[in-house]
């Protein structure tokens, strides 16, 4: 590590190392500053900028240090990798967060760290950043702290006192994957952190419901917890990834599971694939995740391929629909909410509009057009009051090809720009 390194150099190194964490959400908590101090949290979160990878910049996402004693193969900061190392002082992170926030660049801070010695000491330094922001600076914006690998449940819990969200990364869907790529990590340890955090979050929440005195205190990790899973670094199929995610949602009531495609890094470890999995795989996992949580699908229904993976060419709902044509066509004027939610192209909002709209009239094709939902994808699966010509072709073998062109074009464009490097 260079002595007296410039702040800009540190920022470059420690932001670069933090970018592999997918989460940038600043949602899930509402807080006012009572007319004093700085910042607030709006509940829905705000994306203050977007980088050319299409990802949002909501939080100042950095590591406190990228010095790390661990050797997780997929990680750019692993001890065996030759990368420049840097560390922020606690005061530097506090100042940078406030300076950025005052200029409206960010919603808050997402702080993680390599482990540079004792894990609890590292965790306590993250907590100290959050404490100073809250107590010394009167900062009411969003703070997300990452549970440091190997930190005790108590140290992680101390973070919850000041942070809006604390998250422990599970990193891989199966212990076998961790054994291969991150021997020092275990799913059990990550889940132990989640369990202890979950218990405290729920306890604090019910305490607040009961006692007015507790409501005046600072809430414990009010935005709940999330986790991240890397996909594509091993051969583990989507089915395992989704089963693990589903289990975590149910057991620990996580707000979110983030899926991040293994991304090639500078000087990757030789145990890792050289080629990144297609980005669309991550996209499909998120679609499946939503279907599990809000659309009443089960993991077993979504993964139909023999190799246990989601289809990359069609979204999971369309894939399910193409495989279950006996379920269709669905009459938009009669079907239940559950049935409508299974129609490709119809989301929860559109279904709500249909249910409200059909109280007033019999829905026709023109009405569906006003939903601003993808008509080409939807029409073969529905009957409207005036027309069901397209739904007659529900058994056509070329149905899959007919409803897909838009998406393919988008992916093609993205890969084109990647190759030529032009806007």
């Amino acid at each position, binding site marked *: 590590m260079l002595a007296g390194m410039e702040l800009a150099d540190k920022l470059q190194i420690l932001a670069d190392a933090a970018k592999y964490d997918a989460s940038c959400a600043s949602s899930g908590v509402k807080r006012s*500053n009572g007319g004093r101090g700085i910042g607030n949290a709006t509940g829905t979160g705000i994306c203050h900028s977007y980088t050319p990878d*299409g990802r949002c*910049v909501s939080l100042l996402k950095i590591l406190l240090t990228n010095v790390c004693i661990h050797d997780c193969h997929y990680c750019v900061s692993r001890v*065996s990798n030759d990368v420049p190392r840097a560390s922020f002082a606690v005061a530097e992170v506090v100042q940078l967060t406030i300076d950025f926030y005052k*200029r*409206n660049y960010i919603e808050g801070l997402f702080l993680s760290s390599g482990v540079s010695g004792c894990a609890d000491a590292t965790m306590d330094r993250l907590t100290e950043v959050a404490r100073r922001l809250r107590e010394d600076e009167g900062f009411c914006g969003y703070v997300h702290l990452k549970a440091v690998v190997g930190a005790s449940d108590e140290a992680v819990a101390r973070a919850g006192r000041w942070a809006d969200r604390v998250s422990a990364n599970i990193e891989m869907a199966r212990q076998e994957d961790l054994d291969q790529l991150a021997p020092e990590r275990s799913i059990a340890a990550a889940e132990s952190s989640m369990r202890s955090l979950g218990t405290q979050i729920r306890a604090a929440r019910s305490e607040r419901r009961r006692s007015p005195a507790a409501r005046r205190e600072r809430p414990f990790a009010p935005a709940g917890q999330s986790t991240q899973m890397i996909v594509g670094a091993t051969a583990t199929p989507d089915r395992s990834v989704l089963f693990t995610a589903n289990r975590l949602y149910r057991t620990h009531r996580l707000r979110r599971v983030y899926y991040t495609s293994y991304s090639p890094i500078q000087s*990757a470890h030789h145990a890792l694939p050289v080629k990144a999995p297609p980005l669309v795989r991550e996209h499909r996992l998120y679609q499946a995740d939503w279907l599990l949580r809000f659309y009443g699908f089960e993991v077993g229904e979504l993964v139909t391929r023999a190799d246990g993976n989601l289809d990359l060419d069609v979204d999971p709902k369309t894939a399910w629909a193409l495989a279950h044509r006996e379920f269709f066509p669905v009459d938009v004027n009669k079907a239940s909410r559950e049935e409508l939610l299974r129609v490709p192209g119809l989301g929860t909002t559109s279904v709500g509009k249909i249910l409200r709209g059909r109280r007033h009239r019999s829905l026709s094709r023109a009405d569906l057009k006003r939903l601003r939902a993808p008509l080409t994808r939807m029409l073969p699966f529905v009957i409207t009051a005036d027309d069901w010509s397209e739904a007659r072709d529900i058994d056509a073998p070329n149905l899959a090809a007919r409803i897909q062109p838009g998406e393919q074009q988008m992916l093609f464009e993205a890969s084109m720009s990647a190759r030529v*490097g032009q806007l």
Partner: protein
Amino acid sequence: MATIVLDGTFAHWRAHARGLLAGEVDPQDVTWVDPTREETSASLFSAPRPTAVAPLCGVPPRVARVLAATLETAACHADPSTWALMYRIVWRSLRTDGSRLDLADTLDADVSELQRRVKNVRRDAHKMHAFVRFRRIESPDDLDGERFVAWHRPRHRIAEREAGFFVKRFPSMAWSILTPHRSAHWDGSALTFTDGLPRPTAPSGDELEALWVTYYKSIFNPARLNLTAMRAEMPQHHWPTMPEARAIPELVAEVPARLAAMAETSRVVDGSAAPYVPATGDLDALSAAARGCRGCELCFDGTQVVFGEGRADARLVLLGEQPGDEEERAAAPFVGPAGRLLDELLGEVSVDRGQVYVTNAVKHFKHRVERTPHGKRRIHAKPGYSLVSRCQPWFEAEMAIIRPSVLVCLGATAVQAVFGPSTKLKDVHGSVRVSRFASATLATFHPAAILRARSSAEREERREALVASLRVAHGLVRRDGTADAGPA
């Protein structure tokens, strides 16, 4: 047929709408004109003057509170036809016969259009919350002697409506948000509005912007370029007022080169030495195979592999860091200045170098080239642990053949190779330990550390420590009993 010229405010429209509704004027008989929102409006002087509000005759109808709030939001829409749409909606919602409009009927053409416009305004408001960029200026009369000023270009007339968001967020800071149509100012206690201002009236920079752009560039992952997604969420309309957007063309242009660089380094490390190590064979076979190793990037430096040297039945192995300049030229370990010193010290404890196997943790010479007045010089560069771990299969193969009883690690790199990346020399210095390579393993200074000592005292101390370790090692070898007996 009535024509009403509006001054662009919701209050003005509302006052007229109340009068028209009280008079039961059908929407088809009203033309709304809003010179403040006509794209082609000529000069202010030729624009028609706003129509004065006539006193109410009749009782204006009451409108549901939800609808009133929706209308107020829709009124921010830049399209002047919104005023007519709003009046039509209110008119239809007040019918008492079967044609009465139900606002919950979101698939009605008017309701759907109103909702679309409300959505546009809300989205614009959200983008304003997100994309306003303050620049700090010295301002002695303000709180803490500073004011934060932004110039923002919303698509709709939302500056007044959204000022409250910034009051809530930045209550204890003086700020101004300037837009082309309206400007909002906060001094810590009162919110005021002035006319729109052109861009040059706003400050042109801020000391923090360079850091912000650094952050923006670092958080971008070139392996995931997706411009469609970026443009969808961050329309180019807003780029001119966002400092980080200036970096976008450069970031995008660099992508192919950065991807190629990643593939290049990843291609090399796709190996590690392991695939190149022969499964069977003696030390000579290993040494020959090592010349073809492509396990790390050092093989592209044009330097020779310097493999270990000594007898296959040696009981004592000395492990160094990596070959130096002279070693690389000679393709033999420990023949440069440090090697000559090592020979001298081995002599002091009566060890014959011919009985010892000497090797290095890294088999290539990692260096940088320095230009001096006398030409180029190759300067030693410390190999990181990644190089050590990638070269490790060679050392493991050497040890599997020799199976020494005593192993001496010379220096910190050798210690890492034997005890792992987090072990430091001082942790194991001087003691005899068991390692997976030899039942007796010692760690001590590298002879080069003696040559580099900064004082004679330090030099003497290190020399003594190294000699002591070699003496211990020699003693252990003799006690092991096989060294003096020689090969059986």
